[in-house]
């Protein structure tokens, strides 16, 4: 019953987010601030992780090719498929649930604990629109960093494959270009946009409706990470079935 009540509260929150918009001149600066914090602030860690995961995928694939009948370009092909289909959109979103999600929950939760949200309410400001809407808009740029993650991941695979002696550059590039289906990128970006909405709203929900003090802010951040990850994993399954099944 608690889960149902939470889902209901979440739906009501989403409705409230889009009601009574904040003045555009203020909203504009809030959106730019969130883009800086959520998008550009995450770029470094995603590039770092993507490069090394791409490298590991390439090495693992190469080490598992034992038969001479399997073409050498499989390393590039497998790296591209893994990165574009799953690693960049899904794995990166789980990482973002930890980085961005806990930041959103703890910052909004702290505002709740220190009565800053009550102060917004008293002034007649729609606190949900003021706090959550800019995050949703900022995370519309999330596919932009996922595209970079795809590029860097494949580059990491090439780097590890070629410089680790597991593949030649020509074989790797041939594999990357082999049987390329453009819809796979579209599929990845559709998933990314859905996950972006989840990343902005579920942590906000846990922060906005939390009760208690500093300890509860920490607990809310953890709960938010767990639920954001769970929802991303479930939606990943549903979207894959719908779009590729």
């Amino acid at each position, binding site marked *: 019953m608690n889960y149902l009540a939470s889902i209901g509260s979440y739906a009501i929150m989403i409705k409230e987010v889009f009601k009574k918009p904040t*003045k555009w001149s*203020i909203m504009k600066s809030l959106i730019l601030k969130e883009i800086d914090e959520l998008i550009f602030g995450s770029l470094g860690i995603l590039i770092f992780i993507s490069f090394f995961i791409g490298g590991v995928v390439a090495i693992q694939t190469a080490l598992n090719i034992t038969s001479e009948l399997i073409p050498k370009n499989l390393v590039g092909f497998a790296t591209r498929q893994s990165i574009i289909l799953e690693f960049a959109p899904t794995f990166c979103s789980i990482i973002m649930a930890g980085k961005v999600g806990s930041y959103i929950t703890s910052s909004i939760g702290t505002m709740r604990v220190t*009565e*800053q949200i*009550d*102060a917004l309410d*008293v*002034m*007649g*400001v729609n606190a949900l629109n003021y706090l959550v809407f800019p995050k949703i808009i900022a995370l519309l740029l999330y596919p932009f960093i996922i595209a970079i993650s795809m590029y860097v991941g494949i580059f990491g695979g090439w780097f590890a494959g070629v410089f680790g002696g597991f593949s030649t550059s020509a074989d790797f590039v041939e594999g990357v270009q082999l049987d390329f289906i453009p819809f796979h990128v579209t599929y990845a970006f559709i998933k990314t946009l859905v996950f972006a909405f989840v990343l902005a709203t579920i942590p906000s929900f846990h922060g906005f409706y939390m009760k208690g003090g500093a300890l509860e802010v920490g607990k809310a951040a953890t709960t938010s990470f767990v639920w954001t990850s769970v929802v991303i994993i479930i939606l990943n399954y549903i979207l894959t079935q719908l779009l590729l099944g």
Partner: protein
Amino acid sequence: MIEVNDIYKSFGDAHVLKGISTVFDKGKTNLVIGQSGSGKTVFLKCLLGLFSPDKGTISHDGRIYSQLSTKEQRNLRQDMGMVFQGSALFDSMTVEGNVMFPLEMFTKQSHSEMQDRADFVLKRVNLIDAHKKYPSEISGGMQKRVAIARAIVMNPTYLFCDEPNSGLDPRTAIIIDNLIQEITKEYDITTVVNTHDMNSVMEIGEKIVFLKNGIKEWEGTKDEIFKTDNEAVTNFVYSSELFKKVKQMYIEERD
């Protein structure tokens, strides 16, 4: 003027407010006192419209809050200023940003007009040279002054303060109390202050409502509170040695 008519508020099985009725007059500093857990904060949040009473009505100059549309309620809230117990300043904004925030949200003033207004109210609360500082860089007393400046920047009709001098040293607490009273007179607004500080009662209490376990146990003025025979009030007022001595002196003087 705020008229409270027989309000009840419960949270699950916890009955916090049980039939409170009172009137808070314009131009007066009205105090709500009582021990921790007596329902003061819930009562104040009902006056602000943050909680809806389960039963009864609250009328702000004839406008019954629960009967207003959402838009009218939001407009009414723009007539209210609130000073929170912990100041509730936005920590991502400077002092000036905090004070200008309501103006930016609800007025069409130019930036320089807003800055002039922020300067004016910050001077009014005796805060000079703190405009560009962040809340974490100023003292608790200064934070309270910023909170008061932010509360009055829109020229409110109603000012609410939740334990405005908690956590402050006695001297700063008196300064904040006096500031609230001066502003109440100067702007002719209806001020309601939640407190359990008897010094505040002596300093600024023009009308006092005493709550105990969610019930209005007593109401009167600061002169009457020291003469009342109500046991709950006297237990509360004379709980400290200082006030016991004050009472003793009062009795000796009278005799």
